[in-house]
């Protein structure tokens, strides 16, 4: 009987999973909301099931509809992708309880890593370095001061009930403790109705470096190097690379060892990512573990020559992973997340219909996208249009190829973040790898570069000719012409609404 896998996701990652299915001879089953009836991930599938209205909470976030879709189409496997229900232990359990196979870690591992306090405690027990911090709330400022004397300043004061950066204060010296404590406490009350605060060491100029791990049912856990993800806008990664430009082979070995220990401590199977904060002095600390495939997994795939999604499926089927115990990195890969937003207009969202699309091709280029020419980017979901990945024998070559790929890409009808990436890849600090997670907070898009005289003239001639042709056709013919970029510069949504 044909093995079928239900992809409980949409867009680019659904297409990616569908490709892994085909490579393994498995038949992909798509699900779609009303906004995605004819999206690329549906068009590439052998079966497709409608699961409800456009808002995700009425479709892609409903476990019962997804499980029902799997049963109706005879899909035995369920892959959640990322986002939506990917790290929802209850969904993983419901899939398992329905007699289906969850392509991911066990729900127990998801739960253990999903709780900040539980995961910290487990990491401590497993010998994985965590940021030094108080384990109980501070009763008064003197406890904070004592912690600072023991571990050094600066410290980060946090609300125990907090999250999302609210109620946090940096304390740079012992003198600042009393005032900061009072402030943090009153903020904790107003944001979270809970006055408990604690502190941890504040690591300045730190980087976000994460290790890819893979575990199978035989008990093997393998680390596949690190990814550098320090370039973030509004806490969203925008450009990732493998390997990190600052991680030495010795540091890599130590980080991999910690990541494997972290994974083993929760009996991890499938693909997962252990995120670390890397300090300027080479110390690293556990941040969290993402118990799913990551957006940026392709850079690891290119450097380590593996197909992580296919490995996840093999492992879910009870087969051993096909990755050697000591996989060796080769070359360098860079990924840019292309978003439907306009960098010259404050990164305003730019949904709409793509009436011209050319993806880059050629040596070292990989494009993971969920759209084709003619498709509409719906309002309802994440604005990521594609991931552009460039591989080279070294970092310089990968970046040169990325620039070429960005310039070769043509997306008409919507604005994209491509001009932002071209400017970013001209920045000397980005090129030398001298960045931290704060780097993009202090970096503004310089605006579209002034066109050369040549480009200005060619643009002018093209615009005038487009206008003249339009006038001519309006006078000369009653036949409507097919829509073009010129006529429908900012298309409206039509049937999507």
């Amino acid at each position, binding site marked *: 009987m044909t093995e079928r896998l239900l992809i409980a996701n949409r867009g680019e990652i659904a297409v990616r999973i569908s490709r892994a299915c085909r490579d393994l001879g498995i038949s992909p089953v798509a699900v779609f909301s009303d906004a995605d009836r004819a999206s690329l991930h549906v068009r590439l599938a052998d079966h497709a099931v409608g699961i409800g209205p456009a808002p995700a909470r009425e479709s892609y976030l409903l476990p019962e509809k997804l499980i029902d879709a799997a049963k109706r189409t005879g899909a035995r496997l369920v892959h959640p992708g990322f986002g939506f229900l990917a790290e929802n232990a209850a969904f993983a359990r419901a899939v398992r309880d329905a007699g289906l196979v969850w392509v991911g870690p066990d729900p127990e591992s998801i739960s253990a890593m999903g709780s900040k306090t539980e995961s910290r405690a487990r990491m401590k027990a497993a010998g994985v370095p965590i940021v030094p911090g108080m384990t109980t709330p501070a009763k008064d400022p003197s406890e904070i001061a004592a912690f600072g004397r023991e571990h050094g300043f600066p410290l980060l004061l946090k609300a125990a009930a907090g999250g999302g950066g609210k109620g946090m204060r940096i304390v740079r010296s012992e003198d600042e403790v009393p005032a900061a404590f009072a402030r943090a406490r009153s903020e904790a009350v107003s944001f979270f109705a809970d006055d408990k605060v604690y502190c941890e060491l504040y690591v300045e100029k730190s980087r976000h470096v994460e290790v890819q791990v893979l575990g199978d049912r035989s008990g093997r856990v393998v680390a596949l190097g690190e990814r550098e993800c320090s370039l973030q806008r509004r806490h969203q990664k925008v450009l990732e690379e493998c390997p990190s430009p600052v991680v030495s082979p010795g540091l890599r070995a130590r980080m991999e060892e910690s990541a494997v220990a972290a994974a083993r401590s929760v009996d991890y199977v499938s693909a997962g990512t252990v995120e670390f904060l890397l300090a300027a002095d080479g110390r690293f600390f556990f941040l969290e573990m993402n118990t799913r495939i990551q957006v940026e997994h392709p850079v690891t795939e290119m450097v380590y020559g593996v197909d992580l999604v296919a490995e996840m499926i093999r492992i879910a089927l009870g087969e051993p992973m096909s990755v050697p115990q000591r996989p060796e990195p080769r070359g360098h890969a860079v990924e840019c997340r292309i978003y*439907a*937003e306009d960098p*010259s207009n404050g990164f*305003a*969202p*730019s*949904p*709409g219909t793509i*009436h*011209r*699309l050319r993806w880059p091709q050629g040596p070292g280029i990989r494009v993971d996208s969920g759209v084709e*020419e003619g498709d509409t980017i719906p*309002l*309802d*979901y*994440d*604005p990521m249009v594609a991931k552009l990945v460039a591989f080279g024998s070294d970092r310089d070559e990968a970046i040169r190829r990325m620039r070429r790929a*960005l*310039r070769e890409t*043509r997306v*008409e*009808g919507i604005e994209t973040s*491509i*001009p932002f990436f*071209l400017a970013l890849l001209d920045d000397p600090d980005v090129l030398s790898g001298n960045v931290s997670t704060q780097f993009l907070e202090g970096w503004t898009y310089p605006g*579209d*570069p*002034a*066109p*050369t*005289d*040549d*480009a*200005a*003239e*060619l*643009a*002018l*001639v*093209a*615009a*005038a*000719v*487009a*206008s*003249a*042709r339009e*006038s*001519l056709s309006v006078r000369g013919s009653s036949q409507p012409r097919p*829509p*073009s*970029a*010129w*006529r429908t*510069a*900012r*298309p*409206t*949504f039509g049937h999507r*609404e």
Partner: protein
Amino acid sequence: MKYRAKVTSPSGERSVEVEVQLDPTGVVVSLDGRPARWNIVSTPGGGFSVLRADGRQAEAVPHRVGNGTVRVRVGAERVTLELLDELTARAQAVAGKGAYRGSGDVKAAIPGRVLRVLANPGDSVLQGQPVVVLEAMKMENDVRSPRDGVVHSVEVAAGQAVGVGQVLLRLEPAV
């Protein structure tokens, strides 16, 4: 067809008179009275491969983005220019620029869903003041008043989907 264009490049802003003659044998474009033959071929999606007599080539895709404003992608560059046909250019020169700014409508620049309406009929608003919040692609976007004025009417309600250019509020005519 004759046009008046304004384009900015490193050598500064310049005004150019453009004349386009289309005939079966090709395109002649005169820039400030200097005619030259161009080889221009349509490409998919409304663009052109533009080939100048000296062999310089670029793929250029023009988009009209507003009243007389055209944005052209040339290779990976983006060029914004003003292009008005001669008649409109003359009318605008006579009426003065203000004639094109006086509209009392606040319109959606992007498609989205109305999250909140921040002004009521009769409210005084200042230029640049957010009057409506639109949600698009998981982000909140302020729609700002184009000028100082008094709100005449609100044309949309929270929860409603709106398209590009749709009127969200009307302002009282400027005094």
